């Protein structure tokens, strides 16, 4: 499947440094986004370390994912790329943890990480923290990740409502992030993609400022991925831009199969 993509990161209107990092590895259809945390410039160190590690491991993987740092193996039967991703996240986590152990001034640095890797029509997703992955399909926006934040956990347990979560002053409290411990639990998932699906990865600087219907509308109206990402960043900044904003948009092109696809599209309309 042909994929076009683009990404934008921005300081926002309030922060003095950008702790977000992202990378699009086009030949691999690999999309990486990380939101760092920690004092001074350490958030940047953590998030770029995360992004670099994921790129390095995924680029060099030749279907050999048996090396894992941590003993926690998933029981589910993931495809090879997903297992490679899992290992890559373990390594990224350990790298950040180790760096913060070796450099006392980096204590407490960490990062979120959301990675999408498309192989054929299969999307592999690895996720830790409160950045998010969404899928826009036939006009509706689906959230593919669960935030590892205190408020999201409280919503899942039925203690507070999603509305209360949005108003909570505890929104920045994470339950999971890279670099906090030598080992980390990673959320993994796989999805079958359809032509014209749009994958969105974003940091919380977007989702706290812009509503989901607005995100869906922007992605539908602007088909150029880079421009769509920029529009979302602009929107977050118009609303106050309280945090760094990073957006990656990847759009799956329609398969062109000549008259056959034309016929099929036509039949869809008649329905």
């Amino acid at each position, binding site marked *: 499947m042909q994929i076009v993509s683009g990404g934008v990161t921005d300081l926002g209107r309030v922060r003095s440094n950008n702790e977000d990092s992202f990378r699009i590895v086009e030949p691999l259809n690999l999309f990486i986004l990380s*939101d760092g*945390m920690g004092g001074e410039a350490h958030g940047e160190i953590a998030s770029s370390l995360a992004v670099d590690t994921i790129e390095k491991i995924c680029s060099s993987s030749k279907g050999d994912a048996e090396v894992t740092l*941590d*003993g*926690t193996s998933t029981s589910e039967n993931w495809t090879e790329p997903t297992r490679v991703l899992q290992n890559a996240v373990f390594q990224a986590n350990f790298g950040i943890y180790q760096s913060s*152990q070796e450099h006392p001034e980096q*204590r*407490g640095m*960490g990062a979120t990480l959301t990675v999408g890797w498309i192989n054929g*029509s299969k999307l592999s997703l690895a996720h830790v923290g*409160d950045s998010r992955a969404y*899928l826009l*399909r*036939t*006009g*509706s*926006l*689906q*959230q*593919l990740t*669960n*935030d590892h934040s*205190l408020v*999201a*956990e*409280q*919503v*899942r*347990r*039925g*203690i*507070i*409502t*999603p509305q209360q*979560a949005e108003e909570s*002053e*505890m929104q*920045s*409290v*994470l*339950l*999971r*992030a890279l670099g*906090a*411990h*030598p*080992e980390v639990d990673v959320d993994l*998932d796989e*999805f*079958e993609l*359809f032509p014209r699906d749009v994958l969105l990865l974003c940091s919380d600087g977007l989702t706290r400022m812009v509503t989901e*219907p607005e995100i869906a509308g922007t992605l539908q109206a602007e088909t150029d991925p880079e421009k769509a990402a920029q529009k979302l960043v602009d929107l977050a900044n118009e609303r106050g831009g309280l945090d760094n904003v990073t957006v990656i948009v990847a759009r799956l092109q329609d398969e062109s199969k000549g008259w056959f696809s034309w016929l099929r599209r036509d*039949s*869809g309309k*008649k*329905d």
Partner: protein
Amino acid sequence: MAKLSLMFEQKLVKEVPIGNRPVTIGRSPDNDLPVDNLAVSNYHARVYFEGARLVVEDLDSLNGTFVNDLRVERATLHDGDSIWIGKHHIKVDATADTAIPWDSGRKTAAPKINETMVLDTKVRRDMLQQAAAMGERSQFSPGRMKMPTLIVLNGRVDQKEYVLTNKLTVIGKSPMATVRLRGWFKPRVAAQINQRDDGYYLGTGAKIPVVNGSPIPGPVRLNDGDLIEICGVRMNFVIRE
């Protein structure tokens, strides 16, 4: 090798190594670390390795087990942590070959909310417990497994019912769809169900689904017993326990 040192005031009482077997702590003399104090339960807590992780588990003791001032039921231990049981404390030496010092000073501070921060597992459990105690409305009971299910009432699909186990459930003609519609002119993706933090949301696809008689304007949260109509298929959304 990792070891535990039982201390009273500043004096070392006993030291035990942590091997493959759990180290038991309690007032009864048959414990690996007997603690002679009335505030301590007969079998109070135990410490053991779970993979590479050192874990302390409270055995439903009366007065509780504390790790660095926080009451815990079960917590991961780090080098330099102190387990408090009654007036005694147990120093954790988790050094194997490489020393992994743990900055125990930083987690006692109250969270600063502006900066993004990560909660320690111990702090997290504590906060969630507090939150749960406050939230009387909590409908969530961890003992019950909830199984959201679509029961097909009529229409041409490939199964009679579907248990929703994925983040995303596609209803459509596509071979990748979970709920596969049969027949001519059915769209590949007619509608989708997205599992979110607070429940399951039905969203549009190529078609606008009808829920309890009304077409949905956008993604709607499904409630137990909702009737869904899409492409001539009628289904009941139920949450089984």
